[in-house]
Every structure is written in structure tokens, then in C-alpha cells.
């Protein structure tokens, strides 16, 4: 036991001495939280719009004003002819062009019907869709105001409530994602690289002839990263609560416990990789492609899993990040208790046991 502690201390020293890596390992979560919390948002805001106003009347001016005032839009240019549209798109200057026909106000008031054309740069089809919807709703609101003068009978009123996230803050979606990503990166990649580096430089042999069981040698390398991961979890939670104002609705203890479990899962994964791989470069490559990308893609925080084709949905089930992500979301955002996350927890435990088991077996085979 004492030898084990000595090894752990040595490994800690290695990690602490590498200040540059430490800076990134501790700084990355902070930066990501700031980015996702303040800079990145999948909500559409300030979309660049160009106006082609053939009408130039009060109504069109009013609507243009409303468009500009809206948080969703920012009027960039006023065009003079349709010929300009293609160029302005190709230069990437605007995402939407709104065309008011001649006699806009006149037609609207006298014939009760007028057509407005929206032309969108559908390169990004999703944002384009949303942008068109927002633009349409501005017109619809105006239309409703006009018709409000005539009180209509048989009105259905809908009261809408947003659950869990009343202000529609996108941070509520990202924070669990950041946690998942960081732990996967740290736990799996760093551990595997650190062990493989030892193999590469040949110092592994020296460690293995030491008076300690080889498995414990390898485990001792994982311990500092386990601690770093846990520190990162705390950093992320602190930032989430105090910087982003996001509440932890559920039990903090449960959240930390589940995080610890996931950390062990990722460490076992890192261990497994280190038994298969011989060079640091390969370890990193494998980590990037095998861990990071699946963590990003398959956890469900960047891309909705429901939309994926079936084979990819199946793959997402064998990626531990998906389960941890749903656990964190359930506890942190929805405030749910253990009973709701039992299934995911058991799956994570199962995966951990599997990874560790295979890693240990491979390790023993190598030595034999």
C-alpha cells in the first residue's frame, strides 16, 4: 500500500511539474464555459438582412423599422434592384432579403391582400428557416394589429409555459455538454497518452520490475488525472452557478457521485486504449477520433440523437458520453432524483467493468 502511495505521489509530481499542460487542463473548462455561456448560441440573433423596398411608404417604413428594432435582425443594406441580390448573398453580407412590392400600403388597406417576398440564403438551411419564421411573425403581428380593430368572436387563447428553462437559456443545454466533453478528453485521452509515453520511452519496463504489481503501476498513473477531472467538474459547476446563474436543481451529492462514476469510466477507457496502442501519436489520434468526436457527436448535446439515422443512434448507445450527458441534464436541469437515472447509471457501471476487464486481461497477456 505504501509503495502504491509512493507511486501516486511520483505521478502527481510529474503532472504538477508540467505547468503548461496543467494550464490547459484547468483552463479549458473555464474557456469553454465562457464561450458557451456568453458567446455561442444556436438561437438566431442579429441576422443580417437586406431590404428591397419598392413601396417606400409609411407601412413599409414602419415594418422595416420593426425588423431593425427586433433582436433577431439587423438591417445591413438597402438594395435597389433584384439584380443586386445574388451578389450580396455571394459576398456573404446578408442572410435574408425582404422585398416590399410597389403600392404595399395601398394594396393592403384597399384590397386587404398584399404579397411580401422573402428570399433567404439557405446555405444554412436551419438558420434560414428560423430566420424566415421570425420575419414572418413580424408581419403576422402587424397583420393582427390591423385586424384587432375588428373584435373577433370565438377566440382561443393559449397560455404557454416553458418548463425547466423559462428564459430559454441555451446554457442549460451546453453546461452538461461541456462537462461531458472535458471529462472524456481528460480522462480518456490524457491517461492513455501518459501511459503510452512511458511505454514509448522505455521507462515502463523499469516501473514494471519495481516491487509493485504492474496493474497498480498503471493505475497510479490514472489517479492524478482522476483528481484533475474532479477539480474540473467543480470548476465547471462553480462557473455554471456563479457566472452563468444556472441553478443546480437536483441533488449536488448525486451529481458529484455520478460524475465520479463517469470519471472512472473514462479512465478505464483510457487504460484500455493504452494496452492496444504503442506510440503517443497513435494514442492521440485514436483519442481524437475514437473519443472526442463521438463525445461531441453522439452525446446528444450538439446534435439531437432523435434525428440521426438508426445505425448512428445505435452507435450512440455504446458511447458512454450519451448516458452521462442525460444523467447530468436530468439532475442539474430537471432536478430529478436517483430513480430517474438508475438505468443510465447501471449502464455506465457496466461499461466501466467491461473496459477495466478487457484492459486488465490485455495487460496480463502482454506481460506473460
Amino acid at each position, binding site marked *: 500500500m505504501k509503495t502504491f502511495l509512493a507511486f501516486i505521489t511520483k505521478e502527481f509530481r510529474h503532472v504538477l511539474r508540467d505547468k*503548461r499542460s496543467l494550464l*490547459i*487542463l484547468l483552463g*479549458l473548462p473555464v474557456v469553454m464555459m465562457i464561450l458557451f455561456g456568453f*458567446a*455561442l*448560441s*444556436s438561437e*438566431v*440573433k442579429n441576422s443580417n438582412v437586406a431590404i428591397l423596398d419598392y413601396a417606400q411608404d409609411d407601412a413599409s417604413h414602419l415594418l422595416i423599422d420593426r425588423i431593425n428594432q427586433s433582436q433577431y435582425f*439587423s438591417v445591413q443594406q438597402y438594395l435597389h434592384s433584384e439584380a443586386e441580390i445574388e*451578389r450580396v*448573398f*455571394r*459576398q*456573404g453580407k446578408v*442572410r435574408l432579403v425582404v422585398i416590399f412590392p410597389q403600392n404595399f400600403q395601398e394594396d393592403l388597406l384597399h384590397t*386587404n*391582400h*398584399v*404579397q*411580401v*417576398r*422573402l428570399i*433567404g*440564403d439557405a*446555405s444554412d*438551411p436551419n438558420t434560414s428557416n*428560423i430566420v424566415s419564421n421570425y420575419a*414572418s411573425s413580424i408581419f403576422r403581428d402587424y*397583420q393582427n394589429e390591423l*385586424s384587432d380593430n*375588428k373584435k*373577433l368572436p*370565438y*377566440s*382561443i387563447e*393559449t*397560455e*404557454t409555459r*416553458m418548463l425547466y*428553462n423559462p428564459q430559454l437559456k441555451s446554457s442549460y443545454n451546453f453546461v452538461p455538454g461541456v462537462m461531458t466533453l472535458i471529462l472524456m478528453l481528460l480522462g480518456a485521452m490524457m491517461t492513455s*497518452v501518459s501511459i503510452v*509515453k512511458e511505454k514509448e520511452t522505455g521507462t515502463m519496463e523499469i516501473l514494471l520490475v519495481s516491487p509493485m504489481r504492474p496493474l497498480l503501476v498503471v493505475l497510479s498513473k490514472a489517479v492524478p488525472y482522476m483528481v484533475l477531472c474532479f477539480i474540473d467538474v467543480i470548476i465547471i459547476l462553480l462557473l455554471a452557478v456563479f457566472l452563468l446563474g444556472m441553478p443546480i436543481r437536483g441533488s449536488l451529492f448525486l451529481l458529484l457521485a455520478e460524475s465520479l462514476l463517469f470519471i472512472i469510466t473514462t479512465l478505464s477507457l483510457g487504460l484500455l486504449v493504452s494496452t492496444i496502442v504503442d506510440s*503517443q*501519436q497513435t494514442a*492521440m*489520434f485514436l483519442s481524437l*477520433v475514437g473519443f472526442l*468526436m463521438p463525445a461531441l457527436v*453522439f452525446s446528444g448535446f*450538439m*446534435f*439531437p440523437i*432523435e*434525428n*440521426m439515422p438508426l445505425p*448512428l443512434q445505435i452507435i450512440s448507445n455504446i458511447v458512454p458520453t450519451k448516458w452521462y450527458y442525460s444523467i447530468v441534464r436530468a439532475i442539474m*436541469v430537471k432536478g430529478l432524483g436517483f430513480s*430517474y437515472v438508475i438505468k443510465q447509471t447501471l449502464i455506465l457501471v457496466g461499461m466501466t467493468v467491461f473496459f477495466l476487464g478487457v484492459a486488465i486481461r490485455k495487460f496480463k497477456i502482454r506481460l506473460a
Partner: protein
Amino acid sequence: MRNLLFLLQKEFRQIFRNPTILRMILMMPIIQLIVIPLAADYEIKQISISVVDQDHSPYSQKLVHKLTASGYFQLVEYTQSYAKASKTVNNGNTDLILTIPQHFERDLVKSNKAQLHLAADAVNGVRAGLGTAYAAQMIGDFNREVREEWMMLPKFNEIPQIEITSANWFNQHSDYHLFMVPGILAILVTMVGCFLTALNIVAEKEVGTIEQINVSPIKKYEFILGKLIPFWGLGMVSITLGMVFAFLIFRIIPVGSYLTIYAFSAVYLLGVLGIGLLISTFADTQQQATLFSFFCMMVFILLGGLYTPIESMPEWAQWLTRINPPAYFIKVIRAVFIKGSHFSDLTPDFLAMIGFAILFNVLAVFNYRKRSA
């Protein structure tokens, strides 16, 4: 000059003997191009809805029928108990709960007004927003139909109506793949240029062969060119491979000219190679190099509009975009691929990229020392 040739000969020999690099160049485009576009489908296809119908009247059922027939919604639950629906939404099995209270139909007929309640799982704000918007739209349509039915409105439209027609340019079928693929090509080139270069140089540091170079009469610029040229070549190869696979897998080819793409790639690569070089002067181990590269790339790419629109970012972040090389390249490659933008449309971006190439390489050359101070 002679030294440079020797350096290049050695470098190319080493690259072709390094299986990891070759694998990376070949496999990364394939894997990324296959998995990410397939997975990244943001189109909100089907919103799950639970209906709590406490009225059970013909008209409440008509409303529900309208919702399900629209194709936007998938009815996962039809119950009388709000508690049950609540549990469903807690479990994450439904996006929306529509509650139709008792006496809905009666209230509508007798008192001219009726209330409905919508509750949305707003953990994913965009989804909730769209879901409620669709629902509101359907309810509005339903309201209008009911009104017309009961009121026998005259044929002539008494209500002013603004008809909105939308046209989608460049991406008629709203193909999200078309949008994602060029972005992935951009990431590819960035990774090869920045990550591989940094890793390669730092590996030499770790092994000690860089010392042998520093002790020799090889000049600083010869060494740097000796690294830039091969990896620039690899970068150009990777974008070519990327475009080939984009065609093979998705049938996507650029609308614009290949020459434009290559011209921009060439200059952009010089820029990210400079970043990779710069990173290599700060990192001593491959581990550090990986972490630094990954960190830089993540920040650049996320802030570069790959995944969320730049316009949605706050002022300060948009400012940062101006000094973010990947942001330019992502924009340019998407523009050329999807919109067929010409070189003349994108000249300011080209100039910015030249600026980056100069800046980062000068910094790197300045920072690299054969002799430590």
C-alpha cells in the same frame, strides 16, 4: 538552398514511413465526412406531444386530430391526467404538453373565449421555441376554421392579409449535408496544418533530433521551410481527398471554381501552419502540443461560426472573429461550395488570410531559436 533539399528529402521519407500520419490523412476525412453530416441534422423533424384532454368533446378531438395530421407532431400520449404527462416530460419522452381543460368546447361556444395550456420541455430552447411556435400556428389555424365554420364569413376578405412567400436560394432542398460538408473540410485542413505540424516538430524536440539540427549549420529559415513545405503539401492533399470523398459519399461538388478553393486553401494553410509552428515553439512534449493545438482549434472553430452563427454572438465575440483565421476559411469555403462565390466576391477575405499567414509565420520565426537565450 542545398540544405533545404536535404531537409525536404528527410522529411518526406519520414512522413511516408509514419503510419499514423498517413492513416490520419486518409481516414480522418472519411470518418469525419461520414459521421458528422449524417449525425448533424438539426431539422426539427418531429416534435413529440402529449395531450391531456379533459374535455373529450368533438372539437377537442378535432383539434388533436389537426395537430397530429399536420406532420409536425408525433402524438406520444393521450391522457386525462396531467400528472402522467408530467412524468413523461420528466423522463424526456415528450417535448410538449397540450392541456385542453374541461368545458373547452362549451366555453368557446357560450362565452366566446376558451383557454388552452401549453407546456414545453425547454431544456433545448430552440426546440421548445419551434415546438410552441408550430403549435401556436396550428391552434391559430384551428381557431380560424372554427370561426369561419360558425360565423359563415363572407367570401370577401374582411381581414387584412399579408401573404408571405419565401424562396430558398442555393440550397433548394434544405439539405443540411450541403451546409455541413464544406465546414468539415475546413476543419480537416485546419487540423492537418496546425495539429500535425505542431506534433511533428515537438516530437523531434522530445526525441532530441532537433538538438542535432540546432547544433548544425542549418539556418533557421531553412529548417522552418523544411517543415512548412511538406505539411503544406499534406494539407493540400487532404483537402483534395476531402473533396473527392465529399463527392463520392454525398454527391456534393462545389458550385464555384476549384481554382478559388485551392487558392484560398493554399494561403489559409500557410496561416494555420504558422500557428502550428508557433505552438511548437511553446510546447516541449507531444502531450503539450496536442493539448495546445486542440485548445486553439476548438476555440477558433467554435468562435468561427462552424456550429453557431456568428451574428448571434455578442459584440466582443464578433470582434474576435476578425482575428480568427478559421472563421474566414469556413465562410469562404461554404460560399464557394454552396453559392458559387467568385474570387472577386471574397477578395477582402483573401487579403485577411494573407495577413494571417504573414503574421503567424513571422511570429513563429521570431520565436524559434536555435540557441536558447
